[in-house]
């Protein structure tokens, strides 16, 4: 468990699943925020009422709603949202929303001189500042904010660690400057810029950035006896206790008709991506980049469009796995389960995928349903995916798999692989250099998450 926000989010999901299973969700959902934060309980924000308000929005996001239409949101009871969700077949178009009631409107990032300052004789801060923004008054350093450019040089030189730089966690985490305060001083996402990497979601300590979930649609489909197939992303192997054999049995125990490894799709991605690479190189192209990370593809589309032609056209493992599932069970509903927010977007745009869930939601589904993974039997996986395909989940995994595939068949074409292990604020600039042919390498693997999908924003354990 990395923090309290995460814990509360998961507890709430588990509660919702339990109520749903009992058939009492519609009847109890309006009371849920009060039941979790009764009048004299402990609270995490300023008071129980604020906690309850945020819990209401959290429940709305869990039902897939956009939480940004405040005034209507406040007056409409939760059971009405629930009714709408259950009867509305349209999937949430954007997987993220900001809960204004949850956002603390964190103060703008700035340099602060703390009481640790001793107004020393050497005053290295004054000397290190390139803008002359620091002077000492009454034995205490003072910053002139009209001059400060927040470069942080003073931070490094103070012998007493008296200077700190405060930051706005979401803005600081966003690699593309898509999240900013709106005119009311709360965070808002510019969806023309957002690449759905989920970094703001992971970093907000108030948990104000929420996923618009499809969990309740999955639950409803399960309850109404529809045929659901779970497509489980390769990183699951590092996420749940007991290995994927037990996990797959647990998924079947809640009513999924079949469970398919997305790693089988990764095998097809590898095979075709290797072929595509050879073809492109033969045509005289200088560079091909991977396409399996959705957040990366969105980054290219929105911020480095000149690189788009270099992005592989080979479908992602999720989509190939979806095709395998369609062949095997043409009448079933395909549910992708992974650690990723961006995949929700890709899933919504893919014909092969009907719903998307996260590992966190899967864990909550199993917990709320009362399915203990550890006590499940091993699921008979008809043909386990090969190791290199399962390793797609890790950074460099794609390159390794493609290299392996190319062994002996690439003739005089040599793969020269380069990696982006995680996207940050500098990535777009670097990618532009790749697009301009200014950097070495002919095969570029980019994963938005550090470590690859195993470090995904909705993974259960962060390694």
């Amino acid at each position, binding site marked *: *468990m*990395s923090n309290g926000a995460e*814990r509360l989010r*998961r*507890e709430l999901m*588990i509660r919702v699943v339990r109520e749903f299973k009992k058939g009492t969700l519609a009847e109890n959902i309006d009371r849920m925020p009060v039941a979790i934060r009764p009048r004299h309980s402990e609270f995490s924000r300023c008071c129980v009422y604020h906690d309850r308000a945020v819990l209401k929005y959290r429940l709305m996001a869990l039902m897939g709603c956009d939480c940004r239409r405040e005034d209507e949101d406040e007056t409409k009871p939760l059971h009405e949202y629930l009714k709408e969700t259950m009867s509305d077949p349209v999937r949430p178009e954007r997987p993220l929303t900001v809960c204004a009631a949850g956002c603390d409107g964190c103060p703008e990032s700035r340099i602060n001189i703390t009481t640790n300052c001793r107004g020393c004789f050497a005053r290295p801060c004054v000397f290190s500042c390139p803008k002359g923004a620091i002077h000492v008054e009454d034995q205490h350093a003072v910053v002139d904010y009209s001059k400060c450019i927040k470069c942080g040089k003073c931070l490094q030189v103070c012998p007493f660690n008296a200077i700190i730089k405060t930051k706005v966690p979401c803005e600081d985490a966003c690699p593309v400057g898509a999240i900013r305060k709106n005119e009311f001083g709360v965070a808002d996402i510019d969806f023309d810029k957002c690449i759905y990497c989920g970094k703001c979601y992971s970093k907000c300590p108030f948990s104000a950035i929420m996923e618009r979930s499809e969990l309740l649609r999955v639950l409803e489909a399960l309850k109404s006896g529809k045929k659901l197939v779970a497509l489980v992303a390769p990183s699951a192997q590092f996420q*749940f*206790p007991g290995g994927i054999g037990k996990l797959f049995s*647990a998924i079947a125990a809640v009513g999924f008709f079949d469970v398919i490894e997305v790693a089988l799709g990764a095998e097809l991605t590898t095979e075709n991506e290797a072929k595509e690479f050879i073809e492109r190189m033969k045509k005289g192209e200088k560079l091909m980049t991977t396409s399996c990370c959705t957040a990366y593809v969105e980054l290219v589309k929105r911020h480095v469009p000149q690189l788009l032609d270099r992005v592989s056209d080979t479908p992602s493992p999720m989509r190939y796995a979806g095709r395998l599932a369609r062949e095997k069970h043409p009448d079933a509903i395909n549910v992708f389960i992974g650690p990723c927010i961006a995949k929700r977007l890709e899933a919504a745009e893919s014909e092969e995928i009907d719903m998307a869930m996260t590992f*966190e939601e899967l*864990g*909550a589904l*199993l*917990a709320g349903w*009362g*399915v*203990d*993974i*550890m*006590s499940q039997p091993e699921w008979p996986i008809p043909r386990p995916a090969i190791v290199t395909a399962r390793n797609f989940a890790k950074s460099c995994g794609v390159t390794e798999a493609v290299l392996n595939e190319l062994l002996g068949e690439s003739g005089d074409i040599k793969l020269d692989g380069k990696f982006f292990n995680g996207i940050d604020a500098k990535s777009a600039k670097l990618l532009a250099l790749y697009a301009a042919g200014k950097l070495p390498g002919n095969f570029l693997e980019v994963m938005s998450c550090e470590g690859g999908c195993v470090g995904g924003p909705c993974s*259960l*354990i962060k390694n």
Partner: protein
Amino acid sequence: MIDLEICCGTTCYMLGGAALLELEKALPEEWRQLVDVRAVPCTDACAREDLGRAPFVRLNGELIANATREKIYLRLSELVAAAGGEK
């Protein structure tokens, strides 16, 4: 031997048990021979309202709710001290 059972049933695992499983490696050297750490499946404590919140661990059979590393360490140090006293 002190018996430390860490629940890795789904609910406990989700709500913090996963991190507690790492505890064994983090135990101080002197405690290691004294404590038997085991991961156990769900004991249904999570399904009851009266026992407190997950994650659960059991120390010599005594149930600890809302278990954290700190809580476990605290109780363990008492048990270790008591065991030392008996010798």
